[in-house]
Each structure stands twice: as C-alpha cells, then as structure tokens.
C-alpha cells in the first residue's frame, strides 16, 4: 500500500534518516518509535505529501506522492496530528464534515460524519461546540474527522497524546479491530506501540533506522540503544511489558 524507497530526510543541516526503504502492505499497522526530534513527524509529513524529501520516492497505492494532485492525495490518505485550530466556534459535526470536502456536494456526508463520530464514541458530542470540548474529546473528534475522510491510508501523529490510559488503549484497539485501513502511527508509549503495531520502524534521528515485524524489531536491547536508557522487558501472561530500568 505504501512503498518508501531510499528516502532521505533532513532538518536544516541535520540528516534525520538516510536510505530508508520500507514496504507497508495493505492492512498493516506500522508504529514509528524514536526519541524527540528524530524525524517521526517529518516522516509522516513526507508520507502525506506535505514535505518534499531530500531524496527517494514515496508511493501510495502504487502512485508516486509527488506526482499526485492535492485532491488525489486527499482520496488516498488522511492525517491526524494534535495541532488542530479552532479560531471560531463551530459544532463538532461541522468540524467532522470538513473531511467530506473531497466528495464535493454529497447527500451522504452527514451520515458518514456521524458514523465516524460513533466509531470514536463521540456521537453524543455532535451538536456541541468544539471549543468547549476537553482536549481528550477534541483529539477523538480529530481522529473521527480523519476516519470520515474515508481513505485507504491513515497517518496518525501521536493520536492518543491527550487520552487517559483507558481511552488510549480503547482508541488504539478500536482503530486496530474492525479496520481495513493501513495505518502508520507515531506513538511515544512503547507499550501502546507493542499492543497496536503489526510492524515497527525505529528512527534514531542520526540516520540509523530499523524496520520490520513488531516481534523482531521492538526488543529491549534495540530500544535501549535507541533511547540511550536501560529498557527492560517483563512478560505478564501473554503480554510483554517494557519498563525503564533504575539506572539509565
């Protein structure tokens, strides 16, 4: 679904990543893990077509991103980040309806928007003013907006940063459960990543990267190297729990 070949990203004079090549198959859920400033958001921006990479090509559904029109891209991928703006008051429903822009004037937009809101457990918020929501609620509305865009690829930049632990797991499980969408997500919580991901990309921010199936890549030694901290793993039942060791 997403093909990245020999990608290079820079921020100012700094090489964030070089020679990145990954193949994301349809229905896979990739999580990007790395320290602050390692280029995770930059990578998502490049995948979304909002930022031109220094080198390499990105394809979504076989089409090179830099050759697509803005409208064609909007039909391929949606993006969630936590930099939403609400300068003027508006209802939650109207905010979600912005995602239906690419469909033009269509009668079914309202139903699609309400369905997306229900998937994020926000159906009751539809008539509320977005400016009166809590940050956690606003973030779920932002995810619902991306779902309402109805694209095969979903790009999520820290989609659960404002959720309480219960909602964090709930939101990610919901996205993982009945979903045909291909997801690339940036998550800071390693355990949330382990729970959600089928595949993991580790980004160091200094050019070094590792990608592959979650079990092969998301390991305590690799994470310890990546974050420069001692990270241990404990098995509780069937679940692996990562934790940061006492002397790091």
């Amino acid at each position, binding site marked *: 679904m997403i093909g990245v070949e020999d990608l290079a990203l820079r921020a100012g004079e700094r090489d964030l990543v070089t020679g990145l090549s990954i193949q994301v198959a349809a229905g896979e859920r990739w999580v990007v893990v790395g320290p602050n400033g390692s280029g995770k*958001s930059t990578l998502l921006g490049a995948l979304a077509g909002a930022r031109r990479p220094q080198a390499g090509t990105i394809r979504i559904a076989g089409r090179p991103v830099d050759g697509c029109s803005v409208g064609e891209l909007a*039909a391929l991928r949606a993006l969630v980040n936590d930099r939403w*703006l609400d*300068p*003027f008051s508006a209802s939650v429903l109207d905010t979600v309806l912005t*995602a239906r*822009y690419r469909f033009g004037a269509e009668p079914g937009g309202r139903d699609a928007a309400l369905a997306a809101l229900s998937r994020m457990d926000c159906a009751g918020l539809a008539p509320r003013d977005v400016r009166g929501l809590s940050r956690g609620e606003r973030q779920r509305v932002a995810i619902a907006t991306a779902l309402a*865009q109805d694209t095969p690829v979903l790009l999520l930049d820290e989609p659960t940063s404002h959720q309480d632990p219960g909602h964090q797991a709930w939101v990610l499980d919901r996205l993982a459960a009945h979903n045909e969408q291909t997801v690339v997500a940036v998550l800071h919580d390693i355990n949330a990543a382990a729970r959600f991901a089928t595949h993991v990309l580790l980004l160091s921010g200094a050019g070094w990267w590792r990608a592959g199936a979650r079990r092969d890549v998301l390991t305590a030694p690799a994470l310890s190297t990546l974050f420069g901290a001692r990270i241990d793993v404990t098995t509780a039942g069937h679940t692996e729990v990562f934790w940061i060791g006492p002397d790091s």
Partner: protein
Amino acid sequence: MNERRARALIWLFAAAVAVSLAASLMIGSVRLDPIAAVTGLLQPADRSLSSAILALRLPRALTAIAVGGLLALSGSVLQALLRNPLADPYVLGISGGAACATMLAIAVGAGAFATHCAGVAGALAALAVLFLLARRALFGTEHLSGESPSSSMLLVGVMMASFAAAALSLALSLAPAGRLRPMVFWLLGDLSGALDPAAAWISLAVLAVCGWAGARDAAALNLMMRGDLQAFTQGVHVDHVRRRLVIVASIATGWAVALAGAIGFVGFVAPHLARFAVGNDQRRTLPASVLIGAALLAAGDLAARTLAAPAQLPVGVLTVMIGVPLFLWQLRRQ
C-alpha cells in the same frame, strides 16, 4: 446552527438592504412618498422633481451599499484567512496605499474621477508590495510543515499600514490650508462625493465579482480556518486559495477606500454580526456579512446626511457610533 434558520436570516438581511435603500431614496431635505419614488424610478425620462431627486440620491445610496458590502466581504475573508477575529479590511495595508494616493490627488487638487483612479492605483501598488514583501509566505512550499504564513503576511501588512499612516500625517501637515477639510473628511470616510452613477454601478459590479470569487472558495476557507496542513490533507490547494482570497480582499478594500475613504468598523463588525447570526460556515457567513455591511453603511449614510441637515456628517464617524453599541449588545447576549 440550523440551516433553515440561517437561510431565513440571510433573506432577512437582504430585506434590510432593500429597506435601507428605499429609505435612502425617500428621506432627505425633500421627502418623497413611496409612489412618487417608484414612478420616478420607472420613468427616469419624466422630468418631475421626484426623478430629479432620485437621480441625485440613487448613486449615493447604491455606492453606500456597494462599499459596505465590499468592506464586509474583505473583513470576513481576512478574519477567516488570518484566523483572527480582530482582523479588518485595513489589516493588510492595502487601504494605506489607496489612502496615500488619494490624499496626494486631493492635495494637488485633482478632480473626482482622477482621485478615484489614483486610489485604485494606490491599492494595486500596495498589493504588489505585499506580494513582494510576503512572497515567502505566499509562494513558499515548506510552510505546510511549519509556521503558518498568515502571521508573517499579517506582520508585513501591519508594517505597511503604519508606514502609510505616517505618510498620511505628513501629507496632512504639508497640505495647503484650503484643502485640509476635504482631506480630513475623506480620511474619516465620506460618501458625499459619490454622485457619479457610473461609479456606483461599477462598484456594484466589483462587489458582484468579488462576492462570486469569495463564494467559490468559501468551502475551502472553512477548512483552512482549521489549519493549513489539515486543509491540505483534506484536499484544499492551500497556496492557491490563499493567494486568490488575498487578491479578492485587496481589490474589495482598495475599491471601497478609493471611492469613499477609510470608513471604519463596517468591515470589522459586519463579519462578527454575521457569525453571531448564521454561525461560522463561510458559505453562509460571507453572504450574510456582505448584506449586513451593505445595510449598515446605507443606514449610516442616511443618518449622516439627515441627522444634522443641512450639514453633512462623515459617515465613517457614524458607522463606528452605530456599530460599537450593536457589537457590544450582541457580545453581551452571547
């Protein structure tokens, strides 16, 4: 916001424009009864007193409607585009260019037509300077991932407006004493010179074109209000829409200022009243705002020429005096 209610309110505002137009035609030093006004309009060849009076009052009333609509359109577009409820048509400094050129024309004693042309030329020159100084914001490509270009465009506009204000003060202090009064009136905003029917009809045409261009991008503007990156991922060609809307707002402001001077507050308050009434969907806010601005300025101009008759007040003073209480009343009701 209930869609049907919003549509009804927009029709109500249209009716308010019609009422203020009718009142402007009928009320004055000589009062016309409605029948005489209608027959006078229908038979302009008729040389009766009523058609003569109409011929004097119609251009001014139509100009008031067009200028009010243009300022409100520009303010509405800029408040949404800059995501700033404090923005008004003068925030990008376009009016400063128009004002400087007009002042210069008045100071050297140019006629009405030459003065209008100078104002338009000044507005276009200011627009060119804005595009030149804010070209990184308007034509750059990296902004989607970083800082919004609106703030740097706003800063350039504020600087241009400050410079123009200084230039205006300089022009006022150097102007010959005999020309000071028309210059001050123009600065305050004044429609008493709007007697040319051709200019009035052209203004309405400019309003129609700018309104059409704004309405075309209203749906995209709804998305851009919520962030450039978000709008881009949802399918809006953010750069193109921003450039088009800056040009639309600039032409609207430039034409209005060239015609009637720097009439304050209409372009700021009309979008707010429109939002209070019909909500923030720009597809409804823009038309509502245009109609409110038109009605407000037509009513303001009527008051300006009748309150202290036979003396005429500058309408710009009255729009602020009407607009501020109206705005505060709405703010309290929220």
